[in-house]
């Protein structure tokens, strides 16, 4: 064997060994369990914090409002779609204050006139002209009982 190969081949073997060693230490342990990915990331993603708690949790404390809503046109809505995510509120009622929206702009995100909305799906109103002497929708309408008009 020529002297070049007598030097180069051992060098190659050393290099491959070093590479395999590095690989052993650098590949995360859960890698490859379910596929070509780090299986532990499934648990890491699964344990991310949730912010929306769901209607049932709100109803635990706010049973009156929940009962009223249950027989109203808005019964298909969760509480949090208007009031925002409830996780902070659950933890700390002082700091986690939820919004109680009711402006024309807010209610208009669903109810304003838009030709792309089907009238059989959503009741629409022209928020610019409807009862303009009142400022907010909730001045007249109770969001949990929409046809129970306030005077």
């Amino acid at each position, binding site marked *: 064997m020529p002297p070049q190969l007598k030097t180069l081949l051992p060098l190659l073997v050393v290099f491959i060994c070093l590479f395999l060693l590095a690989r052993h230490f650098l590949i*995360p342990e859960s*890698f490859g369990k*379910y*596929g*070509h*990915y*780090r299986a532990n*990331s*499934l648990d*890491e*993603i*699964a*344990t*991310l*914090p*949730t*912010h*929306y708690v*769901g209607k049932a949790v709100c109803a635990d404390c706010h049973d009156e409002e929940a009962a009223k809503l249950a027989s109203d046109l808005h019964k*298909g*809505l*969760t509480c*949090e*779609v208007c009031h*925002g*995510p409830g996780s902070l509120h659950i933890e700390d009622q002082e700091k986690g204050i939820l919004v109680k929206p009711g402006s024309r702009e807010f209610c*208009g*995100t*669903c109810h*304003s006139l*838009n*030709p*792309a*909305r*089907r009238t059989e*799906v*959503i009741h629409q109103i022209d928020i610019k002209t409807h009862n303009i002497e009142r400022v907010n929708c909730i001045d007249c309408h109770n969001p949990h009982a929409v046809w129970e008009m306030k005077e």
Partner: protein
Amino acid sequence: MAGTLLATSVSNPFTAYIFAANEPDKSKPWYGIGIDIEKCIGCGNCAKACKAENDVPKEPFFFRSWVEQYTIKNDGSLKVQSPNGGIDGQTQDIHEDEIFKTFFVPKMCNHCEKSPCVQVCPVGATFESPEGVVLVDEKYCIGCRYCIQACPYGCRYLHPEKKTADKCTLCYHRLKKGLNPACFEVCPTGARIYGDLHDKDGVMHKFLKEHNCHVLKPNLNTGSKLFYNGLNAEVR
């Protein structure tokens, strides 16, 4: 040959190999999504809730889910818009007399079973979970952005702080706790549904059977598991 509907498993082992797809775990649900365009009112609550639930950056350049408004005018021209992803609701600027047809299309990750984004990740940082949810391992992602280039639906973005690829996770952290993903939770009209595609008595089978469903860009063979009812030909 497996059809695009039902999408209960990748059609054959060779295809699965090419797409780096794993065989679905029969003991777990295999999630699919249904969106009924006829029920969407474009309120944007889904897009808003998604950002709130998943701590997505609030700037209008990063969306895991968004709502598009399509307007086809009488002269045949098409206008599409999604201001801030539709989060603040949408208005129609074109006069009603000029409009031929207009509708909303919610968009989100299609959680493809032959996902091009999973196929191209060089290190294995993005993958399909045993439940059929395409996820990103943010501790492993090197931020090369190949997946962002490969997604035909524009669902991915680079997180500006984490510098890793980010996308809709079907609120995997909520699914695991038995909760609905945020966007499904807050939809006021029930335009969005999701469920186990393996469940013959489940909502997805019902949805697929009762409606004529379509996926986006079927010619790209992504195995998209997001089925639309009422998808118009113009929708991209």
